């Protein structure tokens, strides 16, 4: 026999990375933050993580089963959404609220808009904001070591001093996954080294936010206050947002220049929402900034289309 059935046009080789391997990498990168979260907040935090993941995967499966679509839970994207949502919740949140949030994330934000790759907002963040608006008390009650307390950022805002080192390591009140900047940074480095995320977004985000904060302290108090900056960088879920939420593929620009602009917009928005001109929303600056940024992505992409190779090149005589 010298006839073959496997005919296709080139290329004939593929890179080993797949959607599921990328999602697995994100899960691995979230492990340090998850472990610190469970260590900080104990069994309830662990349970909440499991509930969110199960609810997200279950919702995706059920929806696709009922609507006779291809079941895509094998790509692990629903697991990532579930884990990210859990890391964005206070550990004391009632389980049914977490389930409601998970269903909202997968059903309303993801599947109703066409499933993976089609959602225009980050499902986990949209669900968090949905829960914040619906159950603002439960969503903003934080405790540490069984003592109800304000988050460091709230303390900072009311003019009190905070322990930046504790914030960096994660031994403070907050949502399950946001407290330890160190753990989140380890995950971020993993994702950048594995080339899962583009460093442009977190860099532009954290960079522009830092510049704003430094200018603010310079103008307001006449000095560059690095402790103030460090507290703002470690608090309020900025690291979680900049490394894991803003870099969500589906809801961030695909053009290199667009990613820089997107990051800068997020940094400025976060600063504005956290600034003293805004008396409420202190801790949610990051979430709302990213959701706003998500909505701007189509416009950003439109104006940052790269110039194709040789476009406008002139013929040399």
């Amino acid at each position: 026999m010298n006839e073959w059935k496997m005919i296709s046009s080139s290329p004939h080789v593929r890179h080993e990375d797949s959607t599921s391997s990328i999602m697995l990498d994100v899960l691995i990168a979230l492990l340090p933050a998850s472990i610190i979260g469970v260590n900080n907040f104990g069994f309830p935090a662990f349970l909440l993580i499991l509930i969110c993941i199960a609810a997200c995967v279950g919702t995706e499966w059920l929806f696709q089963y009922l609507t006779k679509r291809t079941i895509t839970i094998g790509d692990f994207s629903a697991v990532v959404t579930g884990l990210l949502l859990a890391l964005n919740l206070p550990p004391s949140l009632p389980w049914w609220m977490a389930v409601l949030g998970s269903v909202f994330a997968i059903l309303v934000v993801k599947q109703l808009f066409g499933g993976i790759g089609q959602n225009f907002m980050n499902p986990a963040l949209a669900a968090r904001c949905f829960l914040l608006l619906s159950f603002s008390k439960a969503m903003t009650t934080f405790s540490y070591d069984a003592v109800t307390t304000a988050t460091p950022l709230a303390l900072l805002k009311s003019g009190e001093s905070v322990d930046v080192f504790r914030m960096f390591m994660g031994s403070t009140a907050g949502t399950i996954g946001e407290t330890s900047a160190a753990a989140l940074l380890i995950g971020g480095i993993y994702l950048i080294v594995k080339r899962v995320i583009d460093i442009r977004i977190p860099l532009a985000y954290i960079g522009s936010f830092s510049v704003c904060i430094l200018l603010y302290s310079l103008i307001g108090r006449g000095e560059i206050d690095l402790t103030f900056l460090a507290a703002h960088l470690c608090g309020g879920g900025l690291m979680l947002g900049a490394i894991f939420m803003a870099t969500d593929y589906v809801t961030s620009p695909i053009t290199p220049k667009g990613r820089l602009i997107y990051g800068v917009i997020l940094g400025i928005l976060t600063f504005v929402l956290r600034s003293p001109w805004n008396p409420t929303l202190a801790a949610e600056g990051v979430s709302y900034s990213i959701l706003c940024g998500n909505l701007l992505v189509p416009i950003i992409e439109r104006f940052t289309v790269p110039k194709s190779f040789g476009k406008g090149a002139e013929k040399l005589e």
Partner: protein
Amino acid sequence: MNSFTFKGGIHPYEGKKLTMDKPVETYLPKGEMVYPLIQHIGAPAKPLVKKGDSVLAGQKIAEAAGFVSANIHSSVSGTVKGIEPRLTVGGNKVDSIIIESDGKQESVEYQGNDKALDELSSEEILDRIREAGIVGMGGAGFPTHVKLSPKNKDSIDTILVNGSECEPYLTSDYRRMIEEPEKIIEGLRLVLCLFPNASGLIAVENNKPKAIETLKDKIKDTERIQVHVLKTKYPQGAERQLIYANTKRYINSSMLPADARCIVLNIDTVIAVYEAVRLGIPLIDRVVTVTGDAIANPQNYKVLLGTNIQELIDAAGGYRNGEPEKIISGGPMMGKALFSTNTPVVKGSSAILCMQEDQVSASKPSPCIRCGRCVAVCPGRVIPSKLATLAERGKLDEFVKQDGMECCECGCCSYICPAKRHLTQTIAATRKAILASRKK
């Protein structure tokens, strides 16, 4: 010295180890020889022989039909069995001259030429190249005499010899650079005679240190020729990227290399120029890498054009571990999957690649997750994911507006896509359709 490169690109598994240390072996065919009348861009050649004629090796059996066309020569001595449609690597049937070899390899008397370079006239050189039926041997098959006759002849300042061989698995150019560097340099010097204001650049990727060393050593006393070391990256050898990497000049899809004052030639082509001008031998053979994990003894062969591909595979020990899933003529990035191995080696065949497993059919396309990897690797700097979607939806005007025609079909986007979308394939099919409709 890795400054010569471009933006984007990928690093696929190289696979060159299989054959890079294997010296070129000459393979003499046993069976019938098939010469398709289309082995080049342009009009099909016109047959000069008929059934029953006896021919000699090196005899012209079909002549160029027009300026952009090329002569075809018999590579064996024997008898013409007929002229009939035969399957080619492109998957279509093309009128071909079939010759039964008598195994004697009796050839016509080749007229050599050893005049000094400054005594050779441009007409003499171009005539010999045209007569020898030389076309670009990297695959595109553009007649070389046409390429070497640009309108702005005197302003051409760079003759680029493409020794990058960026396609995985291919080692034929590499072997020729090591084994026959003199021929490459002499061929390039002949081409430089045509362009008084040009200098020659032999561009080689830095994963071929032995070739770089050999060539650098051989050009020591040669004026107007340099070796450029390129960064190893696919598609470093793509014409537009190669010109940019070496000269920092851009050309787009509607321009020719001459518009950037460059002429780009393949290694095999330059050697063919040498053989045609100096030895009077027409283009009747080339080096083909027979390789892949499904081949028992991967090997570089000097093969007479017209040789049956199955015969070559058998010469390389046949298959190991059963039948391969896929056989490709050329490299894995831009080569053509073969429907049948009962096809001949032609002027543009660089390799026969036999793969045990087909990675393409092993993965199923899934929805785009907008990771942006295709944008990052695209050497044409377009947005492949968007173009493929526009192509799927039949939005051709928007496809053109988004520079879809600037795609060079290098395959980087399909290679890198984690969702395993057939990006290159979709874009290429649409480009083909648009180009065809423009011709009407």
